[in-house]
């Protein structure tokens, strides 16, 4: 097989997409800035001031926290596997970044028929990788946290899947683009706005997606795997120093990617502007901030569910998203 210039070019684009934009570097900066935004909003809701001293309005506080945690002493309990832990957290961050390659912000376009399956597969990997990483340290509280995480995974992942499938099915059935593809759905999103029924179905699945995202990110009321003071810190119990830095970075990356996916699949991304215009970028950022604000508002105003209450509660969004998907399939 000959190596042509176009192959070299797509390889360079792939490297840029995986490691610079929207890859590791961009995700690192954007996720930590988003952490500052979440902390600031949460602090205002709780009558606090939030991060304030490092950088402009405390914007560099998450960066300083990250650096400080990296420089701390490394404590690994007996039979713990620190390096393997870092690898699995890396798998989690990597799979989350790989989902971003399906969005149109990536210079390396990854699309094809039925690529939504790979998209969801990568999303599940991030949770599984985090569970495995937490199990790298022998601790009863970690084990309880992981068992709760996996129990929750069996209810919120189907909800998430049905919810993101609804706009994809609608767009694929009513446009002539690449069918059942994430990129094709985003490009043909304006077809959803042509019929009030489509808008209603998308809105319903948007609600289900945000609820399952809240659970996927472990924010209140679904912080059951972490469950501060109830099971010490659950899955986070053995994380300290550099390990905690990686775990917190992974959480921020998940928030960033989850909110971006919601913005692109349910809110039309850059609409009503084109993608590579100032209006388009501002539109994406604004919608992103609104989605994150919603997540934080729910987090600030609710208390933790018990695991059985959470699983029982998830019957409603699961049912609603499934019904929306079935209607979308036949309408």
């Amino acid at each position: 097989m000959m190596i042509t210039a176009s192959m070299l070019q797509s390889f360079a684009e792939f490297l840029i997409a995986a490691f610079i934009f929207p890859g590791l570097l961009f995700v690192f900066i954007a996720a930590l800035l988003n952490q500052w935004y979440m902390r600031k909003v949460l602090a205002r809701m709780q009558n606090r001031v939030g991060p304030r001293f490092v950088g402009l309005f405390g914007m560099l506080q998450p960066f300083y926290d990250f650096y400080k945690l990296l420089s701390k002493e490394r404590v690994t309990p007996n039979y713990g596997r620190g390096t393997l832990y870092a690898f699995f957290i890396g798998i989690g961050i990597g799979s989350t970044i790989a989902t971003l390659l399906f969005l149109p912000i990536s210079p390396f376009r990854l699309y094809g028929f039925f690529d939504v399956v790979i998209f969801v597969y990568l999303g599940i990997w991030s949770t599984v990788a985090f569970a495995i990483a937490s199990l790298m340290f022998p601790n009863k509280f970690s084990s309880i946290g992981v068992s709760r995480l996996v129990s929750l995974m069996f209810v919120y992942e189907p909800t998430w899947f049905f919810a993101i499938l609804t706009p994809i099915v609608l767009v694929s059935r009513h446009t002539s683009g690449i069918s059942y593809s994430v990129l094709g759905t985003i490009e043909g999103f304006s077809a959803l706005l042509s019929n009030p029924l489509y808008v209603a179905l998308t809105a319903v699945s948007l609600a289900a997606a945000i609820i399952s995202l809240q659970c996927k990110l472990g924010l209140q009321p679904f912080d059951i795997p972490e469950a501060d003071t109830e099971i010490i810190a659950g899955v986070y119990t053995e994380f300290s120093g550099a390990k905690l830095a990686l775990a917190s970075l992974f959480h921020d990356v998940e928030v960033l990617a989850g909110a971006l996916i919601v913005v692109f699949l349910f809110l039309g991304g850059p609409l009503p502007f084109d993608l590579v215009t100032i209006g388009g970028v501002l539109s994406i950022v604004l919608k992103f901030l609104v989605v994150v604000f919603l997540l934080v508002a729910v987090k600030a105003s609710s208390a933790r569910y018990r695991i059985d209450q959470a699983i029982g509660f998830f019957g409603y969004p699961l049912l609603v998203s499934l019904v929306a998907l079935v209607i979308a399939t036949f309408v």
Partner: protein
Amino acid sequence: MDIGLTLFQTLVASAAMLGVALAVLLIYIRASGVKSSQPAGDKNEPYVGGEQQPFDEESIGSGNLFWSIINQSLKTLYRRIVDRFNTYEIDAWLVYMSAWLAFLIILLIIVVVVL
């Protein structure tokens, strides 16, 4: 449905996932050289998940684990051999050991004489 394209995508996505994972691992390993700007204070022994004494003193050594597997699997064979040969009489043991020693002595004489 184009299977080839989907397979290619899976490979590319997995490559991105693995590449980033290795990059994070590298950062984690390299970051162990990052020095804290603050002097280290008093250090306590790390509290490890509630156990009262170190795991090493409570757990079974790996060698013992190996022999316990051998013992468990060969137990029936051992019992069979013991039941077959053991008469549970001290005289039988004496006869057996004398015969065995005599055999060894004869073997020794043969070896010395012949070689």
